[in-house]
């Protein structure tokens, strides 16, 4: 299993989530975050914004589905400008459903 953490544009979230749902991945957790990238925030005129609002989507999926989910997020969240975001994948060793106590996704 892998944990996919995607940091995406807030205005693209609905589109990404809809596409994930259509592809059969309705389960996710979202979190509002602020961050900056290599460009050190953005400068609009004389005002420098160091922390840009983003949304972090977290999805845990089986290894074989990771590529597909990453592809959907990357495609639906794409604008081609700086700030489209990043996708990180980390290993998950175990997953438990609290309601049933079962050790599976």
């Amino acid at each position: 299993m892998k944990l996919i953490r995607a940091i995406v544009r807030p205005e693209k979230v609905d589109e990404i989530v809809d596409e994930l749902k259509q592809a059969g991945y309705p389960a996710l957790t979202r979190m509002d975050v602020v961050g900056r990238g290599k460009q050190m925030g953005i400068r609009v005129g004389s005002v420098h914004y160091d922390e840009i609002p983003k949304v972090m989507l977290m999805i845990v999926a089986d290894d074989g589905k990771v590529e597909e989910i990453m592809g959907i997020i990357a495609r639906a969240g794409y604008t081609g400008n700086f700030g489209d975001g990043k996708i990180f994948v980390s290993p998950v060793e175990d997953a438990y459903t609290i309601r049933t106590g079962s050790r599976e996704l």
Partner: protein
Amino acid sequence: MKEIMAIIRPNKMHATKEALVARGFPALTAQKVLGRGKQRGVAEELTFRIDPNLVDLNGHMTYVPKRMLTIVVDDDQVQEVIETIMATNRTGAIGDGRIFVLPIEEAVRMRTGETGPTAIK
């Protein structure tokens, strides 16, 4: 070391903290998150008025407010923490949440500079 990432009901937060303290795990990080599972959000589960932004055109919720706990513990304590969280949070209804276990490579206590397992003791 392992990171235990548990997504639970917000109203179970207090009970969960008490139960973890009783077992000797007072340290945790909590975050307010929004989430949905296989059921794509359940509006009936809430008794209070919900943010209109969370409701879609059909009146169903697209997301359910949840609390995410992050606890980093030694490998041999993982099972105890998971059992504590499960026992406190199981209501049997949809939306009890998930627990994920992730490997942690390194931990540093900033105050003293200790690293590794001593940093989380």
